[in-house]
Every structure is written in C-alpha cells, then in structure tokens.
C-alpha cells in the first residue's frame, strides 16, 4: 500500500528523513511516533507530495509518488484522507456542508452527496448534528466531523496527525474506536501520536522515528521516554522538542 525505499529528504539546516525504507500493507493500522522534529511530518508530507524527496522511491497504491506531475497530485490526494489535531473545519459551513464540501470538490453528483453524507455522519455518530455549525459542537464532535470529511470519498489510506491531541482521555478513546472501526472496514490507517496510553492499549504496529531514521518498527507497547538502553535518546528528544518549539516561535 505505502512503500518507502531509501527515501532521503534534507532541509537546509536539518535532516527530514535519512535513507528510510518501510512498507505499510493494505489494511494496516500503524502508529508513527517520535519526538518533534524527528521526521514524522516529513514522512506524511512526502506521502501527500506536499514536498519532494531528494532521493528514493515512494509508492502509494502502486503509484510512484515522486514522479507524479502537478496535475496528478489532486487525484493522488483523493486516495488519502487526512485528519488534523486542530480539526480544520470551515466555520461558516454546517456539519453537513463541511462533509459535502469534500465531495463537491471531487465533482460528485448532488444525488451521491445527498446519499453519502448522512450515511457517513451517522456512522460517526453525529447524524443529529448535521445542521449545526462547528463552534456549536464539542471538540470530540468536531473531530468526528473531520473524520467524516476525511473518509466520505472512501480513501484507501487515512492519515491522522495527532487526532487526539486536543481531546480529553475519554473523548480520545471514542475517536480511537472510530478509527479502529474505519480500519476494520479496510482502510489503511497511519496515525501520528504522542499519547503513550493509546499506543500501549491499542497494541498495533508502532514505527518510531528519530533524527530522520526509523529506530523501531514492531507491534506492541512503546516507551516514549527512553529508547531501550540509552539515556541520550531522552536527552536528544527533549533537546529536539525544545528546538521544535523555538522553531515554531520563529515562524
């Protein structure tokens, strides 16, 4: 489904990914973990072709992403749903319109929209909120709308970038249940997260990235704070987190 082969991406001052190879099969549920600035965002941006790799091959659903032309990028992205930490709903559109918007963009018929949107909304448990605006909803409900928008076009991959980061633990679990359900319906899920309890309890494949390298790739619990046997790993993580914050402030 998603294959990285010797992918390297360098920025001016630091390394995004350094010779990374990984294979994610169709139907996988993968957690992507690691300190800020480790290369997680680079990983996702490369899949979406928001940025270009310097070296290596990236394949999504048998298409070589690195060789997509600008015109093919939108078509490529229709295969990938994306959910963000901050929901990114359009405030001046209702819940229904927010989800329908994703279908309008891909030129689907009004009939298909009228049929599919209510279905997806009730699947996400927010069918009764269709006419409300995002600011009338709780954070958890907003994230459900965002997920509904991400899956309404039936993507083969769903990328969730810290989807529970703004949610309290109970709501976070509700969202995880929904993602698990979506995964069971056949959608590959790639989730970036910092939430240790979620990773541990879900017992899924965990890919850890640090300094642009994959440092671990196995199923089960992951110790966020200390890489096996090293204390420097923790120091470097704190260091790079602080660095990441500083960078954010610069921007």
């Amino acid at each position, binding site marked *: 489904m998603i294959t990285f082969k010797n992918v390297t991406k360098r920025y001016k001052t630091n390394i995004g990914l350094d010779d990374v190879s990984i294979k994610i099969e169709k139907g996988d549920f993968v957690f992507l973990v690691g300190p800020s600035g480790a290369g997680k965002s680079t990983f996702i941006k490369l899949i*979406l072709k*928001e*940025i270009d790799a310097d070296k290596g091959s990236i394949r999504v659903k048998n298409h070589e992403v690195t060789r997509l032309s*600008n*015109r093919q*990028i*939108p*078509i*490529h*992205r*229709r295969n990938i749903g*994306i959910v963000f930490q901050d929901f*990114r709903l*359009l405030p001046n559109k209702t819940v229904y319109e927010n989800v329908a*918007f*994703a279908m*309008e*963009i*891909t*030129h689907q*018929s*009004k009939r298909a929209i009228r049929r599919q949107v209510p279905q997806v909304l009730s699947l996400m448990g927010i069918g009764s909120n269709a006419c409300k605006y995002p600011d009338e909803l709780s954070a958890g409900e907003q994230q459900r709308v965002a997920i509904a*928008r991400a899956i309404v*076009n039936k993507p083969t991959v769903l990328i969730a970038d810290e989807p529970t980061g703004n949610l309290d633990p109970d709501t976070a679990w509700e969202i995880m249940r929904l993602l698990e359900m979506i995964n069971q319906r056949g959608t590959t899920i790639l989730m970036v997260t910092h939430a240790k309890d979620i990773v541990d309890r879900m017992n899924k494949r965990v890919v850890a990235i640090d300094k642009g390298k994959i440092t671990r790739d196995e199923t089960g619990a992951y110790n966020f704070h200390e890489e096996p046997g090293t204390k420097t790993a923790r120091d470097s993580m704190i260091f790079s987190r602080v660095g990441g914050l500083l960078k954010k402030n610069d921007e």
Partner: protein
Amino acid sequence: MMSRFGYTIKQAFRQVFRNRAMTLASVFAITAMLLILGIFFLLIINVNTAAESVKKDYNTIEVFMLEETDETRTQQIINDVTTWPNVAAAVYRSKDQAMQILKDRWGDSAYLLDTLESNPLPNSIVITVADLESSDKVAVKAKNIQGIEDVKYYKDTVDKLLKVTNGMKIAAMIIMAFLVVVSIVVVSNTIKLTVFARSEEITIMKYVGATNWFIRGPFLAEGIIIGIVSALVSVGMIALVYTRVIDTVGPGLVRILSVPLVPADFMIINLIYIFLSLGISIGAWGSIISMRRFLDT
C-alpha cells in the same frame, strides 16, 4: 460539468458581495483606466479618419497662373502637362469658378464674399496625379513652368498630419500598456484579499484533492465579473459623452475642417468589443497572478 460551472459562478458572486468595498474600488480603478483609454481611442480614430480623408482629397496639385498669362498660353500649358507621366488630368479653373467653389464651401457665411469689390482669386490649372507617391515629381516639374505664380501642393501638410497621428498612436499605446498593467495590479490586490480570507478553505481543498483549476475557478470568475462591470460602465459613460460631443461640436467641425466626426454607433459598438475583451483579460490576469503563489504545491 454544469453543476461545476454553477458552483464557480455562485462562489464568485458570493465573493464579490462579501468583498464589495474592494470590488467597488477595483471597478472604479479599471473604469477610470478604460475611460482614459476610450478618450485616446476616440481621438485617434477621429484624427486617423480625418487624415485619411484629407489624403484622398489632396491627390491634386493646383497651379496658379500669373495675372498676365493669357488663355492661349494657359491652354498650351494644359496640353503640355497632360503628356507628363503620372498625370491623370489637367483642368482649367477660372477665377470665377474658384470663387464659386469657395462660396459653396463657406455655405451660410458666403455672403461675406459678396462684399469684395473684385475677385482676388487667380486663374489656375488643377492637376490630378495618378498616384499620390509621384505627386512630388509632378509638383517640382510644375514649379518650372513659365508664366505661373505658384504651385499649391498639399502633400507636405498631409505628411505632417500623418506623422502627428503616428506619434499620437505610439504615445497612446505606451500609456495604454501602462494603464493595463496598473489595472491588473489593482485587481490582483483585490482578489488577494479574498484569497487570504479563504486561505484555510483553500488548504483544506488541496488536502481533499481539489484540482488547481477548481480552486482557481471562483477567483478567476470574480476577476472577470469586475472586468465586465467596469467595461460596461465605461462604455456607457463614453457613449453618453460622445453622442453629446457629436451633437454640439460635430456640425461646427464639418464647416471648419470639412471633416465629419466618426459616427457614434460605430464607435460604441467597437468600444464594447474592445473594452469587454480588455476588462475580461485584466480581471482574469489579475486573479491568476494573485493565486499563483497559493497554488504552488
């Protein structure tokens, strides 16, 4: 396909209204620009037609006889001139005929000529040249004829006039090009505001897989709407003013210069075409420029 077009237009009108202050500002700016352009256009077309008609009238050279040159000598000259190359005809014009022509041209004011005690106009020969280019040679040759007082020859005047028109045309082109660039910048700034206001929406559109043209469509339509409105407003204003000018100044101009103004309906129809295509391209370019950076990735 149809629903997509409908979506684009609907979005564009929504943006125009949401952004009405800036829309109005750019309509004003483009209208002002088109008005200046239109005035230039009217001037150039009129001067041009005047020059052309003058050019056509003056393929003749008039040779004025000395007072003492008698009829036999004059007839001799006519016979001689007709044998020259490039001369189509040579016709005698008596001083009485010349006076009659002048009276006809002066029309209502001709009574002024009646007060003259004697006819001051000389006898003359009117030479029609076969083609305008060779009129120089004919004129030079005519100057050497014995028994003539002067040769009246209009090519110099026509040439000067044409030179002035050409200069005006070039100046107008430069000014127009400058104005077009300015209006494109004005429109692109207006649309940049809508683009910024909707940047979040555009980001989401891109993530969901909207094509660049789908995203660009409404903004493009917004620019085009601004262009069309400005074009129609400025054509309307120019039409109003030009018909007035023709009614008030036109008859006077015919009397003085014997050149009529170009009729209003011809001008207005052409202006509609020119302004609409200019307005639409200014609007379209303005919005494409303002979107360029946004749609890089």
